[in-house]
């Protein structure tokens, strides 16, 4: 056994190298935090109301622990989904809302601030738009009127408006 040929040694090394690679890939995959994914505007439908998603200013998404995306045409649809039956039975990793002022940027729903204004009409008519800070939401409120709130208060408003079962 001591007299292992050089050839065999190299073969062993190669095998080991392959394991290292595999381990590496597995580790990289495992380290991937689920995050917001692209929503295909005009193709994907809302997982709550089934409407085709067509307005990126309001399109929101929920990502599960396993990285599966649930997409919504409006912030209010995501709130209703989380509040209602279906959302209760999945492992939610994170909730994302679109930054109204920077198209394509995502905000963590619980940390964002919201303006509810009739001047900025959302697909589901509750008219919420999302902002990074309370300041920014208030600036927008000065332009368009309406009321500013956080995620928790928004949830209450949606529940109240749609309690008849949307």
């Amino acid at each position, binding site marked *: 056994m001591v007299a292992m040929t050089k050839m065999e040694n190299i073969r062993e090394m190669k095998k080991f190298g392959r394991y290292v690679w595999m381990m590496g890939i597995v580790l990289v995959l495992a380290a991937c935090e689920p995050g917001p994914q692209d929503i295909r505007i005009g193709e994907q439908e809302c997982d709550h109301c089934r*409407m*085709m998603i067509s307005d990126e200013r309001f399109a929101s998404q929920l990502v599960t622990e396993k990285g599966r995306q649930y997409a919504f045409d409006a912030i209010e649809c995501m709130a209703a989904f989380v509040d209602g039956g279906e959302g209760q039975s999945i492992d939610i990793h994170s909730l994302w809302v679109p930054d109204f002022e920077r198209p394509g940027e995502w905000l963590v729903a619980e940390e964002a601030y919201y303006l509810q204004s009739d001047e900025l009409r959302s697909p589901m*008519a509750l008219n919420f738009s999302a902002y990074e800070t309370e300041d920014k939401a208030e600036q927008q409120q000065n332009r368009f009127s309406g009321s500013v709130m956080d995620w928790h208060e928004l949830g209450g408003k949606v529940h109240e408006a749609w309690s008849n079962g949307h």
Partner: protein
Amino acid sequence: MIKFKGINGWIVILLAVAGTMTTATPPSVEASSLSPGQTNRVFNIGEGEEYSRISDALEQVSDRDTIRIHPGVYREHQLIVAQSVVIIGIDRPVIDAGHQGEGFRIVADSVHIEGLEIRNVPTSHSRDHAAIRFDRVSGGKIIDNRFDDTFFGIYLARSHGVEIRDNQLRAYQTREAVSANGIHLWNSNHAVIAGNIINGHRDGIYLEYVENSEIYDNHAVNNIRYGLHFMFSDDCTYHRNRFEDNGAGVAVMYSKRVMMEDNEFLQNWGASSYGLLLKEITDSEIKHNNFSGNTTGIRAEGSDRVKIHYNRFQRNGWAIRITASSMDNMITQNNFIDNAFDVSTNSRQNNSTFEANYWDKYSGYDLKGDGYGDVPYRPVRLFSLIVERNPMALMLLRSMFVQILDLTERIMPTITPETLVDEKPLMSEVSL
């Protein structure tokens, strides 16, 4: 007596003053056929006419005047119409908003706009710019106008009894950019939308909180989202419309008592596309429509007491997909021809009635000779349930294995809904 004479004198003076005021009106305005209480003046706009700009004339008009716009290109935007006037284009003059702002904003009752072409209304992230916007008015007509590259075409906000007829709206909107609807109604009742052609918008026609309105003879084609879209809009009727090649045909959502008749739902292809989506719809009727070449003909979720009869479903992937959350719907006297799946559902529960339809896949017999097959027909294939749960399985559609599965299930139903069955399948097509 002296007192009376004094008053008479005052009246004479007042009349004289009024007389000078009428003569003082601009000579550019020609008075024509004055009737009591009306002014009925005509303002001509164009090269070599009294006014060269529409906005100048709009500042001078009073109720019941007419504005005649002669041929030409008018680079104007944000035209506020604050009097009940008639605006007529002669040989279709062009109003080019030059991507600067909205076109007309109507804030007076019963305004009539006819024969114009409005172009280049800018898209906006935060403003709903429209070529023509009616804002809190009652009555009005928009007839035979063209709209080219406008963000919103016609926008009604809190405006009632407006008629939108024979217009053509053309936009070039894409999924990626902010898009807007061709004809958009919000909080507006008793509207008539007829004979319009809408192409390239987000929704062709969009209704939100609209009641008692009638939509007919329109043609919505190539719009990004829906040809026609109802949100929270009760007691409306749409008939004789054609919905072709839109993201999906029509979505009727959260509405009651909608009448859908004689429409054509054609070629709505795409992974999640459909001719007609019913979402939380109650007490409605779908009659004499043609669903042809759609991924799904009708898709119904949470919809109750909808009567679906005398329709033709031909060459669709799925003719009808109905969830178990839909109750007491009546599906009868329809023709199902050449569909990959006639009916599909998501559960063994079924709370709707399928009766006396014609199914081209029915292979039963009619020994009694009463026109109905003697053995019931089960329109839900076992395979459709598998596809409902695992869409990728669709690639096995034509396989031998699937045919055997379906046959076995038809003989001895174990998974497909037991009560989803047509007890009286028709032996020949319903003549429509």
